[in-house]
């Protein structure tokens, strides 16, 4: 049995003037014990998918199930077996750390002690602040508390909606290490993030844009499907270089990627010498062929035209 299964799920929202399709015919499944990542920007439909799967929102079309329980018919059973950490901090700001945890344990007819084992390595970091109000915690600490509260009833499937947004790199790294330990205990995890670098930490990912799934696979296979040579180019003047590369007749796409610009040419066997001649006015020029990342692949799948400079 799959931990999560969606078949042709569609969700639209109506405003006075128009209809927005937030989730557009989405199908995927998450196997038991898997960390599955939903990778996409704000507004791509991630949160709607989470809310449908956690029985908080009804889809317009399609069927979905969590561990074999239908999200419409068996909503009560689902609520007992899932943990949900919404994107927005949703604990009680004016209860203390300890009171929040106690509260969630009580709601699920359990106690902190009964499942302490599952949260112990996260909770030890929170323990020094257990008398502090949740609203007064830092971003990283809030996130740890929210995870503890989502775990306190020992769920079988965990739903984490953008758990690392706004959290610093050290806390983010610790968070992903915690997810691996939870996976090792047999918990299936659906996690969303707008940050492509976190995609590599998932077993499989779905890239999502405007409510549509662009691709589903392991991060490695997704990257391998990048079908062109990719070049990292830099020079002393990165702004002029960007303009020049975009104006080059054989450029298919060129995007700023920090220290380098990532360039795709529209030929099978590009002549780099020709490119170097074209860029001869640039000092400290460097052109290297590189391996693409998830973000490169995502941008190719988005199939937007080359952006014009503002």
């Amino acid at each position, binding site marked *: 049995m799959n931990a999560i299964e969606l078949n042709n799920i569609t969700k639209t929202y109506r405003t006075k003037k128009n209809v927005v399709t937030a989730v557009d015919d989405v199908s995927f499944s998450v196997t038991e014990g898997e960390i599955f990542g939903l990778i*996409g*920007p*704000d*507004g*791509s439909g991630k949160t709607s998918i989470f809310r449908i799967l956690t029985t908080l929102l009804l889809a317009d079309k399609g069927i979905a199930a969590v561990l074999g329980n239908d999200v419409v018919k068996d909503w009560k059973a689902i609520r007992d077996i899932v943990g949900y950490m919404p994107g927005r901090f949703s604990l009680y700001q004016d209860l203390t750390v300890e009171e929040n945890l106690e509260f969630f344990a009580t709601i699920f007819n359990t106690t902190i002690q009964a499942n302490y084992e599952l949260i112990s390595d996260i909770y030890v970091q929170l323990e*020094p*602040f257990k008398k*502090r109000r949740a609203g007064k*915690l*830092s*971003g*990283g*600490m809030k996130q740890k508390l929210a995870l503890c509260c989502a775990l306190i009833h020992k769920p079988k499937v965990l739903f984490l909606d953008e758990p690392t*947004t*706004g*959290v*610093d*790199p*050290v*806390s983010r*790294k610790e968070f992903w290490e915690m997810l691996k330990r939870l996976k090792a205990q047999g918990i299936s995890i659906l996690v969303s993030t*707008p*940050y*492509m*670098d976190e995609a590599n930490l998932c077993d499989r990912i779905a890239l999502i*844009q405007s409510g549509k799934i662009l691709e589903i696979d392991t991060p490695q296979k997704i990257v391998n499907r990048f079908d062109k040579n990719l070049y990292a180019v830099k020079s002393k003047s*990165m*702004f*002029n270089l*960007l303009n020049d590369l975009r104006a080059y007749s054989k450029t298919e796409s060129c*995007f*700023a*990627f*920090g*220290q380098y610009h990532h360039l795709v040419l529209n030929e099978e066997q590009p002549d780099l010498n020709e490119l170097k001649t074209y860029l001869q006015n640039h000092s400290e020029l460097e052109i290297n062929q590189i391996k693409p990342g998830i*973000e490169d692949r*995502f*941008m190719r799948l*988005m199939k*937007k035209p080359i*952006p014009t*400079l*503002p």
Partner: protein
Amino acid sequence: MNNEIVIKTDKLTKKFGDFVAVSEVTFEVSKGEIFGFLGANGAGKTTAMKMLIGISKPSSGNAAIAGFDVYKETEKIKRSIGYMSQKFSLYEDLAINENIILFGGIYGLSDSEIEKRRSELIAKLNLQSEADKLVGSLPLGWKQKLAFSIAIFHTPKIVFLDEPTGGVDPITRRQFWDMIYEASHNGITVFVTTHYMDEAEYCDRVSIMVDGVIKALDSPAGLKKQFNANSMDEVFIMLARDAKRGE
């Protein structure tokens, strides 16, 4: 980039009672530079930035922003800078044109200057058919591009960006950085705070703050070399993992 210094701090410090939020921070930023200001949660970034933009008085030390003193010339500082944050930037229930006119007026541009720059901006962003629509109806990516354009509408010397590109799609994010590069090319200094290390890679230089102190300051390439790391993420984690604060 040239050697004109537009931000200069010397042992800038902010205390709240016994708590030293920012401790003797000293650095310089040149005209047209893209400067990344990084730090863990609670490191003191926001406190430092508030002093730089003239809304929080330092406890000790000195700083000059666009040549103006952070103790005595805060009004002049505010006129010389632009500011954009991810959380609040524009009035959602005003139209695009109305937001532009409002901010142009706040920064003291004349009506004719506002009108000239407004029509240029609308044309540049290709928003002709949306210009009278409410900002709230725009997609997030457009809001951010517009917010940045409005932050530099009065051609400030420095623009402060507080976590500017969270949550947008990768292509829109690139378009946003294209605009930052262009601003920098035109001589506007860009001061960016961010949690996201791939964003740090776009900066000419970055500083990393830990527990109120600047622990490292160099170009991204220089920092990676210095810490023998493959990415800015690794550099950051090496520096910040022993942070005492964060709660």
